[in-house]
């Protein structure tokens, strides 16, 4: 889940999670009690406290919501972006950022054109050109150097593939196939045009990710550039960034407010300390002493801090639905789970109430039976098969009817943590009551890399995972998780952890991608979600987490931008003098 950013959709369907969040706390939208416009002044130092470490600041390698949002708001502008919000529940709008507007689409979704604004500059005063954007995106194709970032450019651009399935363009370092890239991405003056293989009607959402940002070719040191921040936004790095510790930022005097409708850039200075533990960090935020009064964080509160948030940090907390859905994938390569009845029984026996209780109660997690997050327009709201608790007796009968000798031995992998241990021991109780004999295998180091590896295909019967969409289209939910063609290789499962491989389902994905009307397309994604859950039992959705954030008492205008990434949006934050 850590790798994915999240962007929510239209307000209507977001209601379930968001209104529940609002009900749970009178302070849910407390941030909005102080109108940003009234008190916002320039100056002061904003302290960003973090307990998770940044893996990349290189825009083409960033794929974590926190870093997409913070990077975009502070120093990496993108062609389009989402507006900042004035409350935790407001849905932001897509606007041009470096581009003058949200792009022009022709050729029935296969050609997209963006025009850059005048006056865009790098921190050394040199102009940001369309060629810089073109160069930046080309780096995604150097998959041996620029690792970690999203592959949308490779998937979408009209560039042929080699026999092994990789793009024939190998990026700006090797330069193999440069002519192919130059044909797919053309620059004319201030205008950049992208030719895509297939219609992508929401491509202007895709380019909000920093992987589509500009990169100055003369500053490119490949892997060595990972933490070299070269800014075209309102702040620039002061000194150097230290991995796993952080850095500080000062104003970029070459950024021109007139070119920017989104970033208010109120604080003079921003410090970023990512060496903390979540528990101490929240204790500090709640205690609200000294420099912590001007602090925010992008890390949600750990369960241990929750009881103190409402009493200790009244008026300066946000309780919101998180972008992430947690789910299980039965492994179609396992002997047991290749049987549809076993998958159905497993799904039926799953006790989501145990998950919620062990997580910390209904203020921390909501049960769900959809892979797509409630905040997305495509959310199908598939009913739970037998309430929160599941039906273990019926599941047991189903296993027996299917000819299994009880107990049926299964091994379930999950990402280990203290909470996850409790959650899974609760889930195990229910599964075992339904006639399974569950072995749990919890581990935390490089969890996803491990469950994707070919060795896991024969080791686990089911695996836990989490996911949040990249932007408010379920095209970033269903295909990345369930399209076997883009996931399964000799090297492992990709993100289709359970090796779900169904030709009809894949065909339906292709058909859905071609629907031009957004509403109809999103509804079709929702239908596919329901099919995956109730027809194929390819995924067992579990819960949607809630996020709780706290900020210091002198921070004004800190609102969670739920639709963009689900974190505080630094674009409009200011410091009370």
């Amino acid at each position, binding site marked *: 889940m850590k*790798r994915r950013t999240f962007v929510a959709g239209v307000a209507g369907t977001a209601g379930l999670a968001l209104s529940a969040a609002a009900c749970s706390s009178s302070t849910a939208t407390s941030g909005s009690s102080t109108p940003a416009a009234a008190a916002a002044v320039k100056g002061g130092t904003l302290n960003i406290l973090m307990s998770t*470490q940044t*893996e990349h600041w290189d825009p083409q390698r960033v*794929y974590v919501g926190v870093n997409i949002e913070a990077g975009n708001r502070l120093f990496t502008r993108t062609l389009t972006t989402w507006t900042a919000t004035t409350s935790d529940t407001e849905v932001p709008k897509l606007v041009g950022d470096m581009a003058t507007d949200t792009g022009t689409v022709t050729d029935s979704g296969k050609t997209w054109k963006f025009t850059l604004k005048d006056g865009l500059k790098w921190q050394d005063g040199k102009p940001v050109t369309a060629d810089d954007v073109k160069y930046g995106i080309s780096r995604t194709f150097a*998959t*041996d*150097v620029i*690792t*970690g970032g*999203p*592959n949308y450019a490779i998937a979408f651009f009209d560039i042929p593939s080699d026999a*092994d399935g*990789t793009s024939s363009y190998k990026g700006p*370092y090797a330069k193999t196939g440069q002519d192919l890239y130059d044909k797919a991405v053309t620059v004319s003056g201030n205008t950049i045009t992208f030719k895509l293989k297939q219609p992508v009607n929401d491509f202007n959402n895709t380019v909000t990710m920093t992987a589509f940002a500009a990169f100055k070719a003369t500053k490119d*040191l*490949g*892997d*060595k550039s*990972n*933490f070299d921040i070269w800014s075209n936004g309102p702040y620039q790095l002061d000194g150097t960034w*230290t*991995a*796993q*510790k952080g850095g500080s930022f000062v104003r970029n005097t070459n950024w021109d407010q007139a070119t920017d409708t989104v970033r208010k850039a109120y604080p003079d200075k921003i410090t970023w*300390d990512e*060496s*903390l*533990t979540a528990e*101490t960090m929240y*204790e*500090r935020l709640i*205690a609200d*002493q*000294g420099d*912590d009064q001007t602090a925010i964080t992008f890390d949600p509160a750990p369960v241990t801090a929750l009881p103190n948030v409402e009493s200790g940090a009244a008026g300066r907390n946000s309780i919101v639905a998180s972008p992430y859905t947690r789910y299980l994938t039965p492994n179609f390569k396992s002997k047991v789970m290749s049987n549809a009845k076993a998958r159905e029984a497993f799904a039926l026996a799953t006790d989501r109430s145990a998950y919620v209780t062990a997580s910390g109660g209904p203020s921390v997690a909501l049960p769900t039976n959809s892979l797509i997050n409630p905040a997305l327009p495509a959310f199908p709201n598939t009913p739970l098969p037998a309430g929160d608790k599941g039906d273990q007796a019926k599941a047991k009968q189903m296993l027996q009817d299917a000819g299994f000798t009880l107990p049926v031995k299964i091994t379930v992998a999950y990402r280990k943590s203290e909470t996850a241990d409790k959650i899974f021991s609760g889930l195990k109780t229910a599964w075992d009551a339904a006639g399974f004999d569950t072995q749990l295998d919890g581990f*935390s*180091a*490089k969890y*996803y*890399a*491990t469950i*994707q*590896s070919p060795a896991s295909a024969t080791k686990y019967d089911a695996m836990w995972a989490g996911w949040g969409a990249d932007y408010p289209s379920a095209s970033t939910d269903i295909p990345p998780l369930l399209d076997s063609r883009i996931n399964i*290789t*000799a*090297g*492992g499962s*990709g*993100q289709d952890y359970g090796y779900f491989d169904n030709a009809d389902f894949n065909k339906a994905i292709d058909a859905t991608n071609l629907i031009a009307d957004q509403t109809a397309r999103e509804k079709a994604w929702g239908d596919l979600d329901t099919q995956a859950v109730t027809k194929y039992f390819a995924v067992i959705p579990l819960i949607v987490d809630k996020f709780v954030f706290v900020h210091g008492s002198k921070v004004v205008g800190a609102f969670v931008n739920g639709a963009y990434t689900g974190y505080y949006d630094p674009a409009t934050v200011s410091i009370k003098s």
Partner: protein
Amino acid sequence: MFYYIVRRVLSVVVMLFLITGTTFLLFFAGPTDPARYTCARNCTPAILEGNRKALGYDQPVYVQYGKFISGLFVGRDFPDNAELRASHPEQIVHCPAPCMGYSPTNNQTINTMVATAWPVSLSIAIGAFVIWMVVGVGGGVLAALNRGRWPDRVIVGSALIGFSVPTFFIGLILLTFPAIKWGWVPIPHYSPFTKNPLTWAINLILPWLTLACIFAASYIRLTRAYMIETMSEDYIRTAMAKGQTRWRIILRHGLRAALTPIVTAAGLDLGGLLGGAIITESVFSMQGLGWTAVNSVKNMDLPVIVAMVLIVSTFIVVANMLVDIAYGFIDPRVKLVG
């Protein structure tokens, strides 16, 4: 004496080779694929192969170990790729000797990581060491001299408490109350000694106290026991009979003899601490070697784990050697012959 030292140094070198060799084998020749850990969620076989090659994991283990050892003496380039060096020399990271490796997770050479982490661990260890030695040895002597009376009971009693409370508990209490809740001291944040010694000390006082609490407790008990033992020796009675002053007997004859085992323990404890105080550094977010080690284990950053094992074992083995050599000076009964 000279030959003794030479022999000890040689055995230290051999021991370090064995330790690094074993660690290397465990991590790199084990059933897990270390390249797998360098490649995140949207990994493809091509990326994996590239990383494996860039980090040299495609070569046999003895070649990798050879490169690791030679890197310690002559330095290395990352990635070790002649093609890339020719076409894009600016993308090559040079790691000068003694090169401990490259962390793909941090995109940094381990030397750079150690260079920033080492002063933090050194600062924590030195300050804590001074406090615990003064409190521990002083308290132990006082307790021994007042054996059975109330100062003894108070000192031994508090030592027992200090000894039985876990480090993270003392650390968290010290962090939560004096720093976070009451604001008596700033929230610890390492600031170099060279920048401002006072700020350095103020920021380190809580980690120092945490470690000192734990260690002082055991040193009080240790010193007390040895002092009581030596003070009942015949030669002390002889010294008393000769009419020497009480404090001269305590310091010259009693403490000096009792000190020998304490120096051994102190040397080893300090050696271990210089390699990083894992819990204390984690509680106070002090980015020393211990904190780096914890993070590298969390991220399965194998090259860093190997380097940390090398560093920590070097400190312990060297401290052990120094202690042995120091014996010759402290304890008149010990004579080191070659």
